[in-house]
């Protein structure tokens, strides 16, 4: 009996040891945990935040199932499944900084992808640097992120907003060279101010004879635009520039359209593309619209676009809008960088037979890349996305550049169609490395040869 008990105890101890050993072996890495931050409430949720979240979920599902088109066909990221932790971006920059710390320090995510608001991006970037956590900015536009600072851990896989204004002006002058009087209505916060300043500077540089008549800057979320519309009508502009979006854009269009503001004035909606299906009959024919890049209706056919449209439609029942394209870019960029880091490691491993510690060296080469290695692979990376080729060309290889496009609307059979689409290459609409956007515009779009 006694021997039996001892034996049993031995077996139990061995079994326990075995379990703990195998648990240790599995501990190395079983998934990639991504913190995803987007607006789930507030005015930016409907048009931007929720489409980005739906896109993230659809993309992650498809990537984890290994169903994305090549070269993205491997499961998850580098064979490891992606695990999403989704956080609401609402509440302002201060709240986002503390939420970011929670994500990194308590939830222990491997990467953070997120932020639509420029203010949130500007606030979170330095904290990412402080906590040394790889962070991919999702959809914010302000060029100041990499123009005013330099980051090692922060990347942005979508182009910045300067090209929106520059390409809008080029499109306008191409199609309407006789334009003389220009007014604007933009929200009184970072993005609205930047959009207008870039547009004003561009049009004054390209066509100094243009007169800027009236620049309305209503409060974000103002809701009532009666007086602004009167002032715009009285200023008798040829063209009205607007970067309004979301509820503000819809309220402005609802109030302006019955008052015949657009009978004589042509409208330029820098970020108008996602609203075309929401406001049929309210967007006047001949409105110039953009999608902040070659997204949505401006995206050219490719296996990547077809893939995004398919997985997004299966989840949301709608065509993906530009925040969904930005989301695809961020996940595919991260995946491309991670897998390039894997290949780089294996490629630079000591050739078999030449080294003493072959086993250790090979294990090292095939282990998942660490953060430093992913960052090295991410810098200056070029990868394919549903909106075209993305080049991480600015901000020392941390800021993407892409071409963009604009088109003109017409109302046909109950839907708004976009025609006369013109594409602008990245080099024509984006400043070169080391020059801030406003300086570049004022220099007359000079490029070093």
């Amino acid at each position, binding site marked *: 009996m006694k021997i039996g008990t001892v034996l049993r105890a031995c077996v139990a101890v061995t079994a326990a040891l075995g379990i703990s050993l195998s648990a240790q072996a599995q501990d190395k890495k079983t998934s990639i945990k991504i913190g995803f931050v987007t607006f789930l409430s507030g005015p930016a949720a409907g048009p931007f935040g*929720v489409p980005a979240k739906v896109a993230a979920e659809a993309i992650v599902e498809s990537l984890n199932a290994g169903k994305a088109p090549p070269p993205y066909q491997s499961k998850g990221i580098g064979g490891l499944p992606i695990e999403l932790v989704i956080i609401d971006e609402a509440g302002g920059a201060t709240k986002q900084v503390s939420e970011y710390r929670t994500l990194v320090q308590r939830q222990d995510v491997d990467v953070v992808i997120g932020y639509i608001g420029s203010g949130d991006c500007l606030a979170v970037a330095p904290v990412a640097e402080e906590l040394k956590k790889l962070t991919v900015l999702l959809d914010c536009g302000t060029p100041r992120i990499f123009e005013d600072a330099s980051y090692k851990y922060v990347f942005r896989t979508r182009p910045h907003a300067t090209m929106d204004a520059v390409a809008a002006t080029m499109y306008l002058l191409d199609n309407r060279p006789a334009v003389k009087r220009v007014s604007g209505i933009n929200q009184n916060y970072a993005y609205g101010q930047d959009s207008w300043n870039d547009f004003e500077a561009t049009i004054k540089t390209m066509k100094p004879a243009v007169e800027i008549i009236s620049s*309305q800057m209503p409060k974000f979320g103002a809701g009532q635009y*009666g007086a602004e519309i009167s002032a715009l009508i009285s200023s008798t502009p040829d063209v009205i520039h607007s970067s309004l979006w979301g509820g503000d854009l819809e309220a402005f269009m609802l109030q302006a359209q019955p008052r015949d503001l657009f009978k004589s004035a042509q409208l330029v909606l820098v970020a108008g593309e996602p609203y075309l299906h929401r406001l049929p009959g309210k967007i006047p024919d001949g409105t110039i619209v953009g999608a902040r890049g070659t997204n949505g209706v401006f995206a050219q056919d490719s296996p990547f676009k077809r893939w995004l449209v398919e997985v997004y439609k299966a989840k949301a029942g709608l065509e993906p809008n530009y925040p969904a394209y930005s989301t695809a870019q961020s996940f595919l960029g991260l995946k491309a960088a991670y897998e390039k880091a894997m290949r780089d490691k294996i490629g630079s491993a000591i050739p078999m037979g030449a080294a003493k510690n072959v086993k250790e060296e090979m294990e090292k080469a095939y282990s998942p890349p660490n953060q430093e290695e992913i960052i090295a692979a991410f810098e200056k990376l070029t990868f394919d996305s549903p909106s075209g080729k993305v080049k991480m060309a600015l901000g020392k290889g941390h800021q993407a550049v892409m071409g963009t496009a604009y088109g003109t609307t017409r109302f046909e059979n109950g839907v708004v169609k976009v025609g006369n689409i013109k594409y602008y290459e990245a080099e024509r609409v984006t400043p070169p490395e080391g020059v801030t956007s406003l300086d570049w515009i004022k220099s007359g779009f000079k490029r070093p040869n």
Partner: protein
Amino acid sequence: MSQLLAVVIDGIVYASWLFIIAVGLTLIYGVMKILNIAHGSLYALGAFTAVSFCTAWFAHGYAAAGSFAMLAAAAIVVGLVFGPLIERGLLRFMYGKDEVVLVLVTYALFLILEDVIKLVWGVDPLLVQGPNGETPYSILGNFEASGLSYPYYNLVLVGVAVATGAALTWVLTRTRSGKLLIAVIHDREMSAAMGIDVGRTYFVTFTAGAMLAAVGGALTAPTVSVVTGMGAEVIVMAFAVVVIGGLGSLPGAALGAFIVGMVRAASIHYKPELELFSVYLVMAVVLIVRPKGLFSGAEVRKI
């Protein structure tokens, strides 16, 4: 000259809108000494309910003109459901507590109601719109003034504002219940001792205030896209108006709304970059000269 006329029209329209929103806030404060932050939520509830009612109306294919009845119905329903619910279910347990405590209670209520709205209506922006894009805002047509066209809907706003102000003034000064109300405002305990049903007075006042907030929301709904968080935007402007006029003062709310509307319209027409600044500048100047607002003469004679 024509621009001056445009400023006056724009100013009056905006002032009317502000007055409709602010008057319920000042009424509740005047009688109950509650600074009701949840006023913004009641405004938003009015707007969301209006969207639902109008959408159902259009879905049945009824005449677009009837959507005005739906706006009114939305305001009445929200007022009659949420007013009594909040007053009987929550606020009556708080009477007699410090004003600061009540601000916190209504702020908590505001946060709860914002989430209720999200749960019920979701986060997508909603539009009051018929099958062919017609809205109560556009179906009335436009009128011309100083070379600009304005929708007649703006006159509806002005009409509702004037009618509300006149009706409240009449009730407060010409009717028996108005006199009882003023007695309650003067001295709650003494009124109760004299046999006035203070609880009932509070109940009616809060319900009326809630309904006024919902009227503001329902009338705003056709002109905007109805989104979560719209209540927070509005409560700030409403506070600015009632603080300029003097908290709890009916003529104060009217004058405050008029001043803010005019200043805002003038700055938009002549100096657009000063729009936001101008409103708060007026507020600061008024508070420096009269720290309790323009109409805050005798402490007891509010409303």
